């Protein structure tokens, strides 16, 4: 066998002076141009929004981050995001706690447990659910889910009110609470998370699964040893996709929650608000300044989303050494 390279032969990876062809140059120019254009547009939007938001915050008479009420139309204006940030984060958190395990379970069932005859229509159904517009979920949530969750709310209040978070101050009030919003959001994001997770599970290399099987692993052990570790970063990405939708969801929250500027740890009380719901509710009556104030709240939502995404990337990157992607 000839192991030594013959003299003058380039190692395969060395960069050689590129031979440029017209088509390559046109394509390069186009892709580079549109990339730059996109960045410029995004930067322009960001600058525009930030300038107006800072302008609004500077005229805010009370502290933007700790104030509960949103009265941007008052003279002097007084508004803050405390309730909105809390409500957004808490309702999305509830949604994630419910939706991620359920979605992973459904996705695993479709990809690894169900017989093909059942898996195919099931996968199709999930696809369909993911395409339902959120206003439909919102209407269904407001008209159907709210009255039907009253029983669950009362049950939680009866047996778990000692926890504090499941204490319902007025048992006769409707279930228009952050808790209900969280459940509705969970229902809304289950299809997306399921979809993406299922796709990831399907891509687990056969060799990994057979490695576990040949050791005498049961089906669940195959899932635990081969499928879940391989799909871990994919599940996180899927969850982030769902979380993104939950954080920004407007209609589903607006139809369910009775918004009021109260920041309460009691998740069953019909109080609270979220960024998106507040923007939708206040936008019509807002004057120019009021709109700038709403933009400021929108920017905070954006920053929260960025932070969450960054955290997810950190989690994924931390175990890159062990990722199955290059095996």
């Amino acid at each position, binding site marked *: *066998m000839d192991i030594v390279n013959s003299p003058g032969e380039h190692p395969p990876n060395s960069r050689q002076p590129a031979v440029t062809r017209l088509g390559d140059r046109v394509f390069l120019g186009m892709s580079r141009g549109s990339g730059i254009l996109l960045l410029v547009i995004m930067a322009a939007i960001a600058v525009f929004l930030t300038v107006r938001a800072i302008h609004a915050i500077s005229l805010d008479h009370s502290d933007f981050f700790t104030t509960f009420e949103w009265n941007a139309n008052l003279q002097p204006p007084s508004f803050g995001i405390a309730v909105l940030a809390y409500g957004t984060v808490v309702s999305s958190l509830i949604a994630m706690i419910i939706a991620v395990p359920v979605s992973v379970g459904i996705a695993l069932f479709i990809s690894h447990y169900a017989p*093909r005859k059942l898996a195919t229509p099931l996968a199709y159904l999930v696809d369909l659910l993911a395409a339902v517009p959120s206003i439909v979920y919102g209407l269904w949530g407001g008209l159907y889910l709210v009255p039907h969750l009253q029983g669950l709310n009362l049950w939680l209040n009866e047996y778990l009110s000692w926890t504090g978070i499941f204490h319902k101050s007025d048992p006769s009030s409707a279930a228009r609470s952050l808790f209900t919003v969280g459940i509705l959001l969970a229902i809304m994001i289950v299809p997306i998370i399921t979809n993406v997770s299922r796709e990831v599970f399907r891509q687990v*290399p056969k*060799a*990994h699964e*057979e*490695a*576990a*099987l*040949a*050791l*005498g*692993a*049961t089906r669940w*052990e195959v899932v635990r*040893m*081969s499928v879940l*570790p*391989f799909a*871990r970063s994919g599940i996180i990405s899927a969850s982030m996709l769902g979380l993104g939708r939950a954080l920004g969801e407007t209609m589903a929250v607006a139809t369910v929650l009775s918004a009021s500027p109260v920041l309460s740890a009691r998740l069953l009380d019909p109080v609270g608000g979220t960024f998106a719901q507040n923007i939708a509710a206040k936008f019509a009556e807002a004057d120019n300044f009021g709109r700038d104030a709403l933009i400021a709240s929108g920017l905070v939502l954006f920053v929260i989303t960025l932070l969450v995404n960054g955290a997810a990337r950190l989690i994924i990157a931390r*175990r890159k*050494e*062990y*990722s*199955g992607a*290059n*095996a």
Partner: protein
Amino acid sequence: MAKRIDVSGLSAYYGNHRAIEDISMTVEPRSVTAFIGPSGCGKSTFLRTLNRMHEVTPGGRVEGKVMLDDENLYGAGVDPVAVRRTVGMVFQRPNPFPTMSIYDNVAAGLRLNGSARRKSEIDGIVEKSLKGANLWNEVKDRLNKPGAGLSGGQQQRLCIARAIAVEPQVLLMDEPCSALDPISTLAIEDLIGELKEQFTIVIVTHNMQQAARVSDRTAFFNLAGVGQPGKLIEIDETQRIFSNPSVQATEDYISGRFG
């Protein structure tokens, strides 16, 4: 710790396609049996029927009997999971669990099926298995590094260590050296020679010299044509197969006149 395999009248199907037909043979304990034959004649398929991995493939189906000493692997009520614990397998391409460290790879099988063992016991088995796979000296200082970071040959020996850690009765190897360089191949061939003291070994190979070097008995498979099922042509002492086979087709194949 090694058992005799006795196959009789075994056919295997992919859906309606019969890949192998009516195979009967005996594999002696504490010996190496090599499977040779042209591509597509069903060597891998047959090998996978010996630890009930064939039925994992969608549409995979088996007829016939595989006796492991006096237990029929395809008998009613036999748990395929239990079969695979007794009959280990090493694949053509090294497939360590990419998310696991070297240590965890070897310990993976020990932690299955709810078997709780003490850490010190697992430590001992991991070391013994890695030594058994001639890998210990190369990895003992980095047991907690990912198994995917090893070279191909090391990964394959890691897979062998993983397979022998659960102390199977039989070890099936499907072209274990085909993705490896000559030096790693030699290391694994030596290893097979050592392992046969303890295990019954079946190895599929396309490399005639390898079959001649490592095996005690050799089985030659062939198929009549494309789309036809593969059949066992003959099985005999390796020496005889390579010097004086009783079927002409075997001699033709070995001397390179076809296939």
